[in-house]
């Protein structure tokens, strides 16, 4: 059953259309026939040319990196208890920040997550770091509430906010075992524990 009914109708209609087109084509002037032939060809050529040109367009310039992605923060070491704090509750840690980007970078802020600890820096922030430059920053941490300073955690970090021409963003810098040990020792001393 399939195909036995509609097939002849389709063929007849197709032949009719072919005949009608042929008659209509012969009635057209020579110039019109040329236009009708070359018009679609020209349009197709234009389309292909556009596609080719678009395909070979140079890629857009690489965006300036998100600031934190090209800033390398490293722990340098413990610089001792601060002589400026006679109560002995302030410790100084040294970190370095290297700008690995081709654009200038600014260290906007450094904070510490412990709620019993306040942090300031020397030099004061914001601090500009030029491409390829490494700067050292003192983290000056003062114990303000010893009950809120953990003494045995393994992964303390500082949050550093960076800015470049594209964005401002924060990254947690996990400074590693040496920093953890130095921090715990310093805070033990600051809080007269041990």
């Amino acid at each position, binding site marked *: 059953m399939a195909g036995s009914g509609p097939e002849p109708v389709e063929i007849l209609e197709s032949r009719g259309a072919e005949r009608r087109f042929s008659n209509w084509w012969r009635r057209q002037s*020579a110039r019109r*026939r*040329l236009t009708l*032939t*070359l018009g679609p*060809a020209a349009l*197709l*050529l234009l389309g*292909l040319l556009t*596609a*080719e040109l678009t395909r070979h367009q140079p*890629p857009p310039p*690489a*965006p*300036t*990196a*998100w600031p*934190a*992605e*090209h800033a*390398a*923060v*490293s*722990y340098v070491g413990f610089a001792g208890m601060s002589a400026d704090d006679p109560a002995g509750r302030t410790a100084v840690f040294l970190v370095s920040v290297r700008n690995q980007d081709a654009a200038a970078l600014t260290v906007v802020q450094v904070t510490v*997550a*412990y*709620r019993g600890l306040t942090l300031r820096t020397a030099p004061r922030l914001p601090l500009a770091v030029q491409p390829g430059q490494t700067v050292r920053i003192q983290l000056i941490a003062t114990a303000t509430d010893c009950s*809120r300073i*953990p003494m*045995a*955690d*393994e*992964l*303390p*970090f500082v*949050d550093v906010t960076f800015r470049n021409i594209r964005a401002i963003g*924060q*990254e*947690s*810098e*996990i*400074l*590693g*075992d*040496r*920093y*953890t040990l130095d921090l715990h020792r310093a805070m033990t001393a600051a809080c007269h524990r041990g």
Partner: protein
Amino acid sequence: MRNRSLLVLTAIAATGTLTLTACGSRASNSGSGGSSSGSTTVTIGVDAPLTGSLSALGIGIQNSVDLAIKTANKNNEVPGVTFKIEALDDKAAPQQGSLNATQLVGDSSVIGVVGPLNSGVALTMQKTFNNANLVEVSPANTNPALTQGPNWQTGTKARPFASYFRTATTDAIQGPFAAQFAFSTLGKKKVFLVDNKDAYGVGLVGTFKDEFTKLGGTVAGQDHVTSGASDFSSTVNAIKSSGADFVYFGGEYPDAAPLTKQLKAGGANIPVIGGDGNYDPTYIKLAGTAANGDFATSVGAPVESLPSAQTFVTNYKAGGYSQAYGAYGGYSYDSAWAIIEAVKAVVSANNGKLPSNPRQAVEKAMSNVNFSGVTGTVSFDQYGDATNKQLTVYGVKNGVWTTIKTGTFSG
């Protein structure tokens, strides 16, 4: 009439020629996968869950490796060598992973393997690969014991298998980082711990718990769920009666999503925090609005934010892959590329030819691999762990994972 016919024929011929030329140039570009002029063909195997509830992650791994291979072949990255892919489905099952490892080892053309997704699966594959000196690079395994041995937590680190490497960072960082985030950033003090009893889930909860209690947090309760279960009511009741102010979950999204859904439906409007196993759009799809306010950590920085990843993202989209590259796409590409770099070094050291039995040489070369990849600089330490250790906290806001903060380990 003849002239007119000639004109028409010329126009048609010109159009046809142009069309064929255009088709030809498209084909030569898109056919980058196998167009290398290399004479030796080697296989990079993939082992990942390609079916089942974790397939969204597994297919992202497979596609990203496929893209790396196509790129290497297109660029003739290792002259004289053409790479091809062989992807096996481990169904997230350790037994299947073990069978796949045997199959991949048995295929002499396999020069390295990317995978698996699950740490529990990796545990059953490592020895088989190691006996054959077949390099395995996981983009997703986070259990520290895989590289540092079973006693890593007591400070006795010993690499169990020289052939095993990973580009993802470990739960030795992921768990504590999540604990610091929950305790210090969110101000949460009482946790209810839940794991799915597998190596990854138990390990992750362990590292989280250790750091959270050291910070001063308390564990209000702990429970274990069976992976694949649908009714978590007893766990939900235990959480509610514990008075915990959040839940930490060790496992994957197929279990975490119904848990958070049933938890919120039960009236406990507290966040669920999980690891990289939770970080997938499917988590939100399964949990619906109950996912809002939940958090997950995942390996690496968000790929979209990395300048080094822009080409990968563009090429992945252009590659026409129907599934997203997912949480481990960038790491999978880098895992495959690490193998390609090792092969390149071996070929270079052997007068431009691949040795007849190259597996051992490739394993040796992996230790010196160092290149700028999708996720940053890719190299491995003495344990086979990635030297680039980054993590990101994501939160669900209005039904979408959004980046909260990224952490970088520089110690």
